[in-house]
């Protein structure tokens, strides 16, 4: 919100919104997910402003999978097309829509960046994040080894196969710790939940934060 204020953009939060339906869709409950997605369309169909979300996986769901739920011939099809065309992930919105990369932010810390799978491969958003990080003053960005390897969250995967998820998470934590940073940045609530939990379990003082927190920062400690 701070960032949007800085940019003089008025955010509207629609109180009726619940969820895009991704957790159910990814678990195979496509028919159930459709019910939720219908609510999503109705909620966001009340105006025609761009829809911005801090979660890459939610946006990927809307932009790439909603058309499966509402193909041509369904009553919601046109509404779906409209909403899909104006849904953005936050960094995508800043760099590609507003066309800004310097937000006047300052974050004097050593950080590394973990690209979440849905953002990187689903939406193809990667260099936008680096452009935004580049615009942050006093930031020291260390490359993360095996950055593009999944952290092991995968939504329902993490609870269906916790042992495999754990191995993937441990690998990610090992790579993060090897960079000797203070913060690891991720753009997805799932990745953040997984990685911050893993860091805590490893007894590490490295904190996992969302890119937005970095961009909103103006120099002090979080």
């Amino acid at each position, binding site marked *: 919100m701070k960032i949007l204020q800085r940019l003089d953009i008025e955010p509207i939060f629609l109180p009726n919104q619940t969820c895009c339906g991704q957790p159910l869709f990814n678990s195979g409950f496509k028919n159930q997910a459709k019910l939720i997605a219908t609510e999503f369309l109705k909620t966001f169909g009340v105006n025609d402003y761009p829809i911005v979300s801090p979660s890459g996986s939610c946006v990927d769901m809307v932009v790439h999978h909603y058309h499966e739920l509402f193909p041509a011939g369904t009553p919601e099809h046109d509404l779906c097309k409209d909403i899909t065309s104006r849904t953005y992930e936050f960094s995508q919105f800043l760099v590609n829509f507003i066309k800004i990369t310097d937000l006047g932010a300052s974050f004097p810390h050593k950080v590394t960046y973990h690209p979440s799978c849905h953002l990187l491969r689903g939406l193809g958003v990667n260099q936008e994040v680096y452009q935004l990080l580049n615009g942050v003053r006093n930031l020291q960005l260390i490359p993360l080894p095996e950055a593009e390897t999944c952290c092991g969250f995968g939504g329902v995967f993490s609870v269906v196969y916790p042992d*495999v998820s754990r191995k993937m998470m441990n690998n990610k934590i090992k790579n993060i710790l090897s960079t000797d940073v203070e913060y690891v940045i991720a753009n997805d609530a799932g990745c953040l939940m997984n990685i911050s939990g893993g860091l805590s379990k490893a007894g590490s003082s490295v904190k996992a934060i969302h890119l937005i927190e970095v961009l909103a920062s103006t120099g002090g400690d979080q």
Partner: protein
Amino acid sequence: MTDRTPNYIHFSDYTKHIPENIPVAVQQATNRFLGNREARVAELPNWQELRQVAHEIRLHTLENLDFYLTQLERQVVQNGGVVHWAANSAEARAIVIDIATQHQVKTVVKAKSMASEEIGLNEGLSEAGIQSFETDLGEFIIQLAGVGPSHIIVPAVHLKKEEIANLFANKLGVEAPPEPVQLTAIARNILREKFLKAEMGISGANFLIAETGTLVIVTNEGNGRMCTTMPDIHVAVVGIDKVVPDWDSLTVLLKLLARSATGQKLSTYTSFISATSRGSSEGGPKEFHLILLDNGRTRILHDPLGRETLKCIRCGCCLNVCPVYKNVGGYAYGWFISGPIGAIFTPQILGTHIAQELPFASSLCGACVDVCPVKVPITEILLHLRQRVVEGNQHVKPSAPLWIRSAGKIGTLAFQIPWLYQLGTRLLPFLTAPLNKRGWIPSLPPPFNRWTRVRPFPAFSARFRKWWSK
């Protein structure tokens, strides 16, 4: 082993007890192959174009499969070969044994063929009293050891040279120093004798060219050439999805196959077999039999999305990039084919009632989709199959247990009804307050402990909505 089709694939159970050596060995292999592949891809500036054309060729072939198979059959027969059609594994095995029995075959040499593993051929031959020797070094080793493959390209990569030396000493009765050069020489000598003596050679095929009725067989060791040259009878067992329209199409696929699999520009030997030699001293077999295997592939063809599974050219690249596969190895997937392609092929061939755990064996990271040379939409098919498991479709009832299906419906209500959702956001922090330790919930009762066993869960707080309403 992989000789009988599984009754049920317990992916979850298998992954709880993975011996350490398997992921370590698998990761060494996959890293090597991926590193080489990266260099190869960089050399070909039109790599993405090649992938797109390959996808189009494979899809076109599947969409016209009846035409190309008919053409293939006509050509093979014209060349002097015999074509057999096998609806399923049992039929395919029976045909092979029939041919072998008719010709009083006692010894068979086998080139590496995933289709033959799919139909459980080795066990079938053994039951019929026919000795069958795997001739690919890795397959030879795991045949001796009585275990399944941990990787589809290097099936014995998890075994150390000392273990292999012991295996040779115990099973072959030879003095075997634990050095790859000597071990390879031992295998060469033993198998050389079999190549020269065997009455029948069995192979698969990497591709079948419809235009001229040609089998394409790719190996690095030369065992493919040996199996299809030395014995008097050559039998090939090949899935109907391996057919390719013509030589031009094949060119595109050959440019992608080795590079994607191991990062070689081309495998050492590529054989193109279009006829029997009919006794001429060109030095080849006198008789050729092609067994075309369905085994559920025509059923997959009905489904426009599932159909894309059959574009696969078995390069193994999806295995090499998959973080799930790399942490569990091949055995966990329960059948001859593993990794991302295994997770979509097996449930469609064996059915979701047997393989329902496999479509969930993925974090949907999409790394496989990025590298597949023929653009199989693996993550989309995984989601498609997950739906088949929990919701079913017009052909198949959902196989997921009732409590999971109910959980799905209940979850939907929570997200569908705005006032219920909002109530949840206010209630949950209150209800979980006793479990909250400095912002974390370290443990939860089952089934939620599946998360907390691995890492703590962040405590609920209704901060955002409260803050917004101010």
